[in-house]
């Protein structure tokens, strides 16, 4: 199957990634790429290594073999805090907002960077509060007091504060009500319009097919299939094979 080729050199390239947890061989040679401004979905059943792929890209887990490139230069063993500053935002599976910090302080960890002027900070905050009015209401509340859905929004907003080129989104809709799921869909669309690339790991297949331009399907630590989302539907036998029962 041919994937729609990105118009320029891909933003993020992952080649032959092997990751272990101790002796457990989780990624058996993952290869994928995300173009500038593209929304790419990564789907597969539980335990196939989707989250591990994101964590390895972000440098939170060590790649034993293989290469990761950001805008052409190798970032395979780069420290996570440097990657964040180079433009990779990470929104983990369990949100992991700083529970004892206020909403404002959570956001601050993202925009308190060098080279960010006061006016730019204000602009970023205004933007994020426009996306997520609820966060504006709760700006002085401790992160731990927010509901699950609000924490998810805070986690995404926090990553947006980094003004990233790409956001690694790990199962953003897990445990959320359907109404919130469509809100997440809207946010992904809005980010896409702004030119932010997204690597979206999800178990919600319909959402992923609608929100992404291309998808990769993983099984047992490897990419088994990839194609444009225009070429596949939920009822495709491939989907049943790799995600269903």
């Amino acid at each position: 199957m041919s994937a729609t080729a990105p118009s320029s050199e891909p933003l993020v390239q992952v080649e032959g990634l092997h990751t272990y947890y101790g002796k457990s061989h989780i990624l058996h040679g993952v290869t994928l790429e995300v173009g500038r401004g593209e929304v790419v979905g990564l789907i597969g059943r539980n335990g196939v290594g989707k989250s591990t792929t994101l964590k390895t890209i972000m440098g939170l887990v060590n790649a034993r073999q293989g290469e990761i490139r950001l805008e052409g230069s190798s970032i395979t063993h780069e420290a996570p805090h440097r990657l964040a500053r180079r433009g990779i935002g990470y929104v983990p599976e369990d949100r992991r907002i700083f529970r004892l910090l206020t909403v404002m302080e959570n956001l601050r960890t993202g925009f308190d960077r060098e080279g960010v002027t006061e006016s730019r900070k204000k602009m970023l905050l205004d933007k994020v509060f426009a996306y997520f009015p609820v966060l504006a209401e709760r700006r002085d509340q401790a992160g731990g007091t927010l509901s699950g859905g609000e924490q998810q929004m805070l986690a995404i907003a926090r990553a947006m504060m980094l003004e990233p080129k790409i956001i690694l989104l790990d199962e953003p809709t897990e445990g959320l009500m359907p109404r919130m799921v469509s809100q997440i869909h809207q946010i992904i669309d809005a980010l896409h319009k702004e030119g932010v690339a997204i690597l979206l790991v999800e178990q919600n297949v319909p959402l992923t097919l609608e929100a992404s331009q291309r998808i990769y399907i993983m099984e047992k630590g490897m990419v088994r299939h990839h194609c444009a989302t225009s070429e596949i539907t939920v009822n495709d036998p491939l989907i049943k094979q790799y995600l269903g029962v």
Partner: protein
Amino acid sequence: MLTVRFGGLAALNQVNFEVQRGEIRAIIGPNGAGKSTFFNCLTGVLRPTAGKIYFNGEDITGLSSDRVSQKGIARSYQITNIMPNATALENVRVAAQSRRHSWNMVRHCMSFQDLVEKAEQALDKVGLLAKANELASNLSHGEQRNLEIGIALATEPTLLCLDEPTAGMSAAETHETMALVRRIAKDFTILIVEHDMPLVMELASRITVLNYGAVLADGPPAEIQKNPRVQEAYLKT
């Protein structure tokens, strides 16, 4: 009927479950369905908030895990739980020893011949007899996972609970483990939690699907595959 509540959220909500002797029963379900919670209740790690568990006609609800083990339920874990600084044989021998009480403090542990034999038999069943004297930490990942099964076998269980036995294995290792489970299946009743669908479909005689803490479907593999609600749960359509 089993109910487990964590705070206000029911991790397992009125789950009814029955296993017949000699079955290979697979428990599957999407993220957070309650599979681990179920296993934890069964093996005494967690106490159910409501409901009862009967094993061989006996009420074992709320028994501690060591008592549950003595009753004949053995479990292998998702994250490998072996003793890395002991040999494969020693790992298994200690498990075998749990079934036999001795106050003798003078005899060398290896002189209990019957225990050593039982351990060797268990190792043989999981194909690790050749590596009996190898340090467990030196075994490959797949071999360590199989050792974990061997440890469970050495306690001579009636019910063997396997928690994601093929996690982190390559395709080849998965295949081997599958063959292993089929081999030992005739001697035990097996409960297996797995994500690997092809494996589950081939191995299981019956499948129970959990979703959001409740039983979604229950039946032979062919039936489960055709069940639209199961597909829905997995694909979130």
